[in-house]
């Protein structure tokens, strides 16, 4: 692989994707598993280009579809470590339906959302997480929609691992990424990430003034939901919810284990295969 420093990276100078990428690379390299068994999926957007700048197998698919790809890969190959990484528009907007239902599937997948609260690649339109009232090209009067709280949604639909971290705090990101990836179950991580080109409100200084660490996961899901919903003058980051009792769906070994010829012959010879 061409070293990242020499690769033509498509992000703007100062983009929050840089520290996210560097941290992710460090965490993945230090994981107690072979790198060849890591697969990244992504959709479309600036954050979705992430896999191109990391030395692992990847499927960079369509806008909003990183999650069904991840589901297919994980079901086919339970032994692979599958991480879906994309932006807020991709994971929560175009892929909103998949976000809800992927969590419900109880698979061991890590969902990372680089949440800059704006559509970067298409030049700054409102995303599902854009603050109410923020002005942009498609909302000249200010965003009229209520911002989505993705982590509260994740908690309500049963995600067993829910965290928020901040691109301006690599140390914190590192801990959260590592725990999320090693957690046996669907982990959802929302990464607060300034967009230096199009989000003039949620900037590095704006976040630095507000974020504070929640050091331990909360004891009740309802408390975790309340914490996830805390927004404004004070913004919590940390692992809000970690369900140690969670039972992950068992994978089925199929890869390079073809169906036995006699099994199909048996099905073929069944005089009538009853189906209603």
């Amino acid at each position, binding site marked *: *692989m061409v070293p990242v420093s020499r690769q033509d990276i*498509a992000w703007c100078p100062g983009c929050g994707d840089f520290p996210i990428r560097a941290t992710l690379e460090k965490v993945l390299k230090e994981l107690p598993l072979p790198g*060849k*068994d890591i*697969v990244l*999926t992504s959709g*479309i957007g600036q954050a979705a*280009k992430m*896999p*191109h700048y990391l*030395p*692992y*197998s*990847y*499927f*960079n*698919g*369509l806008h909003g*579809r990183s*999650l*069904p*790809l*991840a*589901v*297919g*890969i994980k*079901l*086919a*190959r339970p*032994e*692979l470590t599958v991480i879906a990484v994309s932006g807020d528009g991709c994971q929560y907007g175009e892929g909103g*339906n*998949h976000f*809800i*239902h992927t969590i419900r599937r109880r698979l061991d997948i890590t969902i990372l959302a680089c949440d800059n609260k704006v559509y970067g690649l298409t030049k700054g339109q409102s995303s599902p997480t854009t603050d109410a009232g923020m002005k942009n090209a498609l909302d000249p009067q200010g965003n009229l929609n209520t911002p989505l709280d993705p982590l509260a949604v994740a908690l309500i639909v049963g995600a067993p691992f829910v965290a928020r971290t901040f691109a301006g705090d690599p140390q914190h990101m590192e801990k959260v990424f590592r725990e999320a990836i090693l957690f046996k179950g669907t982990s959802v991580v929302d990464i607060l990430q300034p967009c230096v080109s199009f989000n003039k409100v949620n900037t590095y200084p704006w976040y630095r003034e507000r974020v504070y660490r929640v050091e331990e996961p909360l004891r009740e899901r309802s408390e975790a939901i309340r914490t996830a919903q805390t927004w404004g003058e004070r913004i919590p980051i940390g692992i809000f919810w970690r369900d140690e009792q969670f039972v992950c769906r068992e994978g*089925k*070994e*199929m*890869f*390079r*284990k*073809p*169906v*036995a*010829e006699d*099994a*199909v*012959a048996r*099905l*073929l*010879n*069944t*005089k*009538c*295969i*009853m*189906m*209603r």
Partner: protein
Amino acid sequence: MEFNVLIGGEAGQGMFSVEMELSELLSEMGYHFFATKNYMSRIRGGHNFHMIRVADKPVHALSGRPWDLIVAMDDGETERRHRPSLGTGGVFIGADRVGQIEAEAKGSFQDVSATSTILVGLILAFIGADPAETKSAADEPARSALAKGRDFAARWELAGRMVIAPKAGDHCKLDGNQALALGALLGGCQFMAGYPMTPATSILHYFATVAAEIPVHFEQAEDEIAALNMALGASYAGLRSMVATSGGGFALMTEAVSLAGMTETPIVIIDAQRPGPATGLPTRTEQADLNFVLHAGHGEFSRVIFAPGSIEGAIALARKGFDLADRWQVPVFILTDQYLADSVQVMDGRVPTKMLRREYPVFEAGYKRYAITADGVSPLTYPGLSEARVEVDSDEHTEDGKITEDLDLRVRMVEKRLRKMEGIKQEAVMPSRFGDRKAATVLISWGSNHLIVQEAVEALQAERIAVAALHFGQVYPLAPKMARGLSRKRLICIENNATGQFAQLLRRELGLKVNHRILKYNGECFTVAELVEKVRKIVG
């Protein structure tokens, strides 16, 4: 000699049970038969009817002849609609007599659902089925219920009305969807994702059922967009994968079809057609998605479209589809329809039963997923087998799967993806020819009309009207060798749609001019008698 029976009534009145149980026993006892249904998109009420044709020779279509027996489970509607089509000497069993059977079911078996089994016994007696054979084909309590049916037949002087000899011997009976599912398994398919949609749903049911005992997985997706993306993920990860849906669900899949084209991920997509646009007639048949599947997905890339015309064809083409998809790394489509999906047929041809499998070559680090080659096919492998990374991208990409805006490379990549069509054409599945090869008129069909046309051709020949026929199981791509000699013939294209989509495709791809079109788009299949009459009008 043949026997045609119609069982009509409201949804939920047990007609489907009669069809299922009867076809099971006919199969067990070695009869040639064909069964299909005409039903409404509702679970209770309305008017549904099931049609079964039993003969002493292979039959694979509705004859369109007057009914020899009509059984009305309802009070009025079946009689009103179908009694006018009862043949001379035909028998109508109406609500009064069904009522007596119901009373017997309740009285003798304390179970109203035994009504269907008693009716089956009556129908078997009607065609002179050997009581001993009938007995040995069933277990108790069905055996006693069948005997009651025979008693009713005797009492109403119906036993042996039309004696049909069981001449099929030992065979397998399948409906079109079962055949596709079996073909997929034979083709090495191990992963399917789907969202229920009539008439494709039973393929999903089948996969979910068999997955319990073999290394195969079915995942119910949140929508068809997710279904195809999941299947592409599973294919990328290393399993032969497929999806099955109908036109409306396929509409949601189209962006992922384009993704399969760009990422060159092997995939098989079944579209079980039903009449559109939009929700259309959910439980009826049509062949109007050809243009849609042909053009689905933005951008330009290679694809293959199969349209099997029989149980054997469905098994063989579904099986082959998985090999083609892997070898050429393209989406392979299988167009079926409600008619074929819901038709139960005796399989009298041979099908290849050798299992096909995906190959798992191992490459070293530096592997290029999109290496440009002479035939357009890059070596394909899967993540985790070695240090070779499998890098796949929906953007235009370099040979090693990185986003690129190098426009010269773009041109080479487009050409690489399209070049595959030449190789695919070389190994095209040739159309099957039947009828009088020297005849000046050729009947052209594709997909599920195959065996209806075949029987119509035989009937026309019996009337000394010479016609040849050509059935296309592969409808795209079309190669000149598939239509050799056709330009000098009078061509009649038979399709279940309103615009003659395949006739247009023949013109576009091979420059063939179709002289006449026989089209049907009311949601029902052709019958043999109807087709014979329409061809006779043109030729005769």
